[in-house]
């Protein structure tokens, strides 16, 4: 019957509309809450803790907008570019040994960063800790 034949397509149309609307709403939330890098001079405190627990502190004065820019400008980090951004493998010349399940943990004032170094927008007075961790 024509009526029943049309029902599923109408439901699919509504499902598509809802999916697109949710997607658009999420994109708007992201755009509205997203921090944008600002190129003013800022001072950042960076603490690098190696595998032995030894800490080295760095004070960076920079116009960089993101953590990656600031750390690369200071020559503190190196790594591999991935589709998700830079995967940091080396900090202050110390390379994480994948064979020993080592990795660099980035925290800001003790709180784990939820974004990679490319997406982390820095502000004046920020404190970051970069710690060599062992074990996944």
């Amino acid at each position, binding site marked *: 019957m024509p009526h029943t034949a049309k029902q599923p397509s109408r439901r699919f149309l509504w*499902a598509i509309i809802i*999916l697109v609307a949710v997607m658009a709403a*999420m994109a708007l*939330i992201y755009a509205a809450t997203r921090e944008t890098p600002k190129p003013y001079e800022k001072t950042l405190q960076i603490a690098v803790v190696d595998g032995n627990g030894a800490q080295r502190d760095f004070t960076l004065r920079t116009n960089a907008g993101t953590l990656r820019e600031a750390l690369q400008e200071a020559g503190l980090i190196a790594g591999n570019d*991935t*589709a998700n951004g830079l995967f940091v493998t080396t900090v202050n010349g110390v390379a994480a040994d994948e064979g020993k399940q080592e990795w660099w943990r980035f925290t800001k004032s003790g709180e*784990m960063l*939820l974004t990679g170094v490319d997406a982390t927008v820095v502000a004046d007075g920020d404190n970051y800790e970069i710690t060599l961790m062992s074990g996944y």
Partner: protein
Amino acid sequence: MRPAKRVAVLAACGALLITVQVSLAFLPNIELVSLLLVIFTLHLHAYVLAPLAVFIVVEGLLYGFGIWWAHYLYVWPLWVLFILANRNKRSAAFWALAGGAFGLAFGALCALTYLFTGGVHTAMAYFISGIPFDIAHCAGNVITALVLFRPLMRLGDRLFWA
């Protein structure tokens, strides 16, 4: 399906899930695991939980049992439960939309873990920072289902029922 064949098929399905995940890992949130779980569940029904368990455990062994792994413990089983509840559906458009919705909700579902470990603020920050990846996940799931659902179902019919 005879028990011996079933064990072999389930093991192969688990291996295939891991292979496609690892081989597409360079593309952020573009994956075939969601679609393969649809194909497997529509053919194997509840037996799909075996390859799913293999997939989750091996992912942990490959990438480490971090907090992200806790997401896998409920996000993928939830998707399989949804597929099981809709296992009579055979429309590519339905699975494209369902996969799209699952991709879009993936970050929000993962953020639930952070609700308990870091509170509402951490969960919201995690969810919002992942929105571009959720949108890519949604688009990827829609396109892969529209393109691959029918051919993979035909292939599944031949492999599973042969």
